[in-house]
């Protein structure tokens, strides 16, 4: 089922005996294969990274609402692990004949996955790839949102797609609002059930696991009290971002 999911949708991945985490799908062939890209940051992701071929894991999904693709001039911005859903999105946009500018951002070169894949995918000269790193170890030194500002001065985009740290997303959203460009933003929250029943992933009036994780500009405006400001922690209380 996940192999035909839309980019931006996620699945709950279970490492038996360790834990279960939501993961964006980073690869789906539309037939029978899907993939996740896992960075070892906690117990469950560490366990998943240690898995070998033929080891079993549990997968349930796909869940949530993914990105809606268009065929115009698109700017895609992925920060760190937020790049996971951006790659399959870029593939679909290229297939639709869209013009794609892809900005890959990370702390340093090691935090930029998918670089080779995207270079192959976007080899046509009508597309563009930019890399920014905080430490300047690769590409342009600086943060993604600064470079987005530069790009928005140069070119008119029909849609901005973005996923990554929420502070980055918020800066990009503000820039897009100034230029009146629609965005689709993929957010992250603490997810338990994944299908809209437990309420742990709520943001304002929305439940991330069914209404998101991809939100439109209109929805983002409705959750302005929380977007980039606070998130629900494991007990459901609000924690500043």
């Amino acid at each position, binding site marked *: 089922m996940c192999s035909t999911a839309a980019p931006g949708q996620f699945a709950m991945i279970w490492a038996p005996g360790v834990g279960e985490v939501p993961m964006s799908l980073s690869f789906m062939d539309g037939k029978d294969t899907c993939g996740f890209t896992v960075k070892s940051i906690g117990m469950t992701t560490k366990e998943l990274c240690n898995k070998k071929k033929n080891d079993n894991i549990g997968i349930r999904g796909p869940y949530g609402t993914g990105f809606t693709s268009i065929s115009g001039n698109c700017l895609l911005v992925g920060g760190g692990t937020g790049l996971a859903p951006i790659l399959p999105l870029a593939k679909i946009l290229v297939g639709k004949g869209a013009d794609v500018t892809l900005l890959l951002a990370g702390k340093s070169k090691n935090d930029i996955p998918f670089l080779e894949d995207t270079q192959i995918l976007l080899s046509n000269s009508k597309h563009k790839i930019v890399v920014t790193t905080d430490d300047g170890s690769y590409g342009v030194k600086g943060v993604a949102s600064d470079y987005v500002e530069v790009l928005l001065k140069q070119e008119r985009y029909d849609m901005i797609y973005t996923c990554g740290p929420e502070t980055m997303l918020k800066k990009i959203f503000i820039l897009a609002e100034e230029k009146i460009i629609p965005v689709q933003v993929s957010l992250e929250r603490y997810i338990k059930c994944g299908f809209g029943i437990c309420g742990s992933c709520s*943001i304002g009036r929305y439940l991330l696991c069914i209404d998101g994780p991809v939100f439109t500009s209109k929805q983002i405006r409705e959750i302005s009290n929380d977007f980039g400001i606070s998130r629900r922690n494991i007990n459901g209380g609000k924690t500043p971002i």
Partner: protein
Amino acid sequence: MNNPVMLASGVVGVHPDIFPRVAEAGAGAIVTKSISMEPREGYPNPTVVEVEGGFVNAIGLSNPGIDAFSKELATLEEKPLPIVVSLFGSTPAEFGDLVSKLESVSVDCYELNLSCPHVEKVGLELGQDPEAVAAVVKAAKKFASRPILIKVSPHIADIVEIVSVAKDSGADGVTAINTLRAMVIDIESGRPILSNNVGGLSGSAIKAIAIRSVYDISQKVDIPIIGCGGITRWSDAIEFFLAGASAVQVGSAVAYKGLDILSEIVNGIEKYMNNHKIKKIGDIIGRSYSSQ
């Protein structure tokens, strides 16, 4: 309440920001997730697993604690629908404290969770002991200016006795039933899937047990009953009314149809009543035995 269909505890109702949406979806009232004195993280994932006819969950009563919860509740500009706050604690004094802390907040009713099947020392462990139930209800009642419901489990030897004791101690109503202890094992890894191993089964799989529980209570104890357990369509609600419930709570069904299921059930009840020329729900409450 505008209608007898409530959103059950533990479903979506954790964060007041979402309450207006629950009201828009047509709920007669919302029961919040169970709240305790102190914040509680609950169990690690996996906390929910789908089974035939429902779900087994062991969320573990996660909640931000009464202080954070009431503070957030107070930020609601206007109360979008009647609010029932579900409460849990391990001693009668804790229930008393919880109620007294909520008295200054605009809520309508308290539901004492005496039936959570998967957390030690609270919930079911209290709810199966008639003396403990009496003490808890009395402690809560002492501070409460609003009605008190108790939510009971069918896991006890005599559900009628527990409800009867609760009524004598001052309970104004009963919600029947909570989830039932259950487990799911993954055959590849050989392990139970839930991190807590044991969870509570909800959904249509438990409806017949809930109907029987409501039927038993209704015949023996003169107390308003809110039916809960496996209501996924309007006809289930009618069945609960006939068994003796005067309102119902919907939970797991939200997973299949979203919050829209609430208005779907409300509309279905109305249509049934029109078709059968029933003027008010009160006319069919308990009809399954009173008409025999």
